[in-house]
């Protein structure tokens, strides 16, 4: 055991994109390690990002493992570390350690339709698996995305979503009516009920605020999705990333190592602690 599990590797921010502005801003950061690294992740995993002097925050990796040139993180400005990240500029250096946690069992889903359902910043954790499925399109059935946010300004990856419209069904939503926006008005679970995706030979992956996840799962069950067909990725406050600091547990599970990806069949057996 020579590795120091708390020692981050330095990485340069090579690109910053303002995804969402306003009071709940989101930025996407692309980073490259300064020195060659054996960092290798799978879709669904997270990394601990460091801003020296501010601390660390666990962030899901939003780029696909197929993307070898950079690691991407889409981050909502929320706490101490994410606020510091939002103040950084291209060329600045952060620390990264990880990757942590389990991953989406995408290899097992070959031949199946995949339905992605996201709310707000919750699209970031599923963006990686969406990009992998898209790149290996021939391996999967129909891909579709149902995604919503408070307003059209709050959607992340706006340009990418426009491009994706040529490749897969994309159903966007906003919470309240907006002038000039013709997308579905209502919450994400209502959009799911409205679009009636078929459970036949399908897997659904959902991520968003806890309350959205809860109602999306109910909507999916209503449509006939079985617990094993519903996947989600959860989060809890984390410090170590390796099941030692003791705070991210849901019952006996540590989200940082036993999660963050769960099928509803697994998650429903755990206590409601997320």
């Amino acid at each position: 055991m020579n590795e120091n599990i708390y020692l981050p590797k330095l990485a340069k921010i090579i690109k910053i994109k303002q995804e969402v502005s306003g009071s709940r801003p989101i930025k996407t950061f692309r980073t490259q390690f300064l020195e060659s690294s054996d960092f290798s992740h799978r879709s669904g995993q997270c990394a601990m990002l460091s801003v020296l002097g501010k601390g660390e925050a666990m962030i899901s990796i939003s780029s696909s493992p197929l993307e070898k040139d950079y690691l991407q993180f889409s981050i909502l400005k929320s706490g101490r570390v994410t606020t510091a990240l939002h103040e950084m500029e291209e060329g600045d250096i952060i620390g990264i350690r990880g990757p942590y946690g389990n991953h989406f069992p995408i290899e097992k889903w070959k031949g199946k339709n995949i339905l992605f359902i996201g709310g707000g910043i919750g699209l970031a954790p599923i963006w990686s698996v969406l990009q992998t499925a898209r790149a290996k399109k021939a391996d999967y059935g129909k891909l579709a995305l149902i995604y919503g946010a408070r307003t059209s300004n709050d959607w992340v990856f706006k340009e990418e979503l426009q491009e994706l419209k040529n490749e897969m069904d994309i159903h966007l939503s906003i919470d309240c009516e907006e002038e000039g926006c013709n997308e579905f008005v209502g919450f994400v679970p209502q959009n799911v009920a409205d679009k009636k995706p078929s459970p036949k030979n399908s897997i659904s992956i959902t991520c968003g605020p806890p309350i959205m996840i809860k109602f999306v799962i109910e909507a999916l069950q209503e449509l006939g999705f079985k617990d094993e067909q519903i996947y989600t990725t959860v989060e809890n406050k984390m410090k170590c990333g390796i099941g030692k600091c003791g705070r991210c547990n849901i019952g006996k599970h540590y989200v940082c190592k036993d999660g963050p990806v769960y099928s509803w069949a697994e998650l429903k057996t755990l206590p409601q602690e997320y």
Partner: protein
Amino acid sequence: MEKILTKKEFPSWIKNLKSFNVYGPVKKDALWEYERIQDPDKLDLNFKNTVLSPKKIIFPQREVILDFNHKKKGKPEIQEALPEETKNVIFGVRPCDARALTLTDKVFEEEPGDKYYLRRRHQTVTVGLTCSDPPSENCFCTSLGGSPHSTEGLDILMTELNHKYYVHSFTDKGRELMKAASDVFKNPSEKDKKDLKQVHKESEKKIKRQVKELSKITDKLKGMFDSPFWDEESMSCLKCGICTYLCPTCHCFDISDEVLSSSPLKGQRVRTWDTCQFPYFTMHSSGHNPRPDKSSRLRQRILHKFSYFVDNYDDYQCTGCGRCISKCPVDIDIIEVLEKVKDYE
């Protein structure tokens, strides 16, 4: 190796341990604490229980894990701040506190291992002391598979026999420590061996408090997550966290950055003990908190120790030292809580 050491000769043993940092119970303001000792006479083996367990020597309440500095326009530098390579010995370790180390070992040894903890653990020799009389009225080690003369987690166990100690080493580390002063030790007589057995037997009988049928409680806890029981039991809790602060098995920690100078940036990444009894322990930056009240946090403490840890590491995360009972300002008594679980309908 089993030897006899007279109490008079005990300081000579310590004096011979020149290459070691020696720790042991020291009396201060009517309380005992484990401290580094220069003068062997300061070491007081006639102690009741120490406020904190010797866990604090292996896993300090605050430790710097990384040093960093970042000059503007330069590349940041991050250095690991590993514990100094030393040889440590802790005298007067209570068997319950030694067993507690075997439990924190499970957490920090699990891959990927924690270098900081493991280095301190490996370079420390633990010398236990049999509790011939229970050091606290709330001792309940025998309910958890331990005993006042348990050797788990110890390199050496000393047992007081009137004016002398029966010194028994079980590991290479322990034998080496005894060899450092081999001339102060004598071979035990048959009577010494008989006396030892008697003291050990008596010591178990003196443990008055107990939890019965713990495995039944563990089974019962599995179905009690949503029970109103936790509201009732936590009603008087002040959320002070002393129960976890004093616990020899609690391992939860925080990692935070401390800035020493802002321009150029210089600072330390620090690990500190943390507690599941505080709201910020689990609060998301959004304000959402999966364990928002004292009821859910008492439940976490009990379930971690008597359910989750059992599932994950096949052991209870409690060794019955009784500190959380003795020092709780509102008399929340973990033995009573567990007993009530058993009868709860």
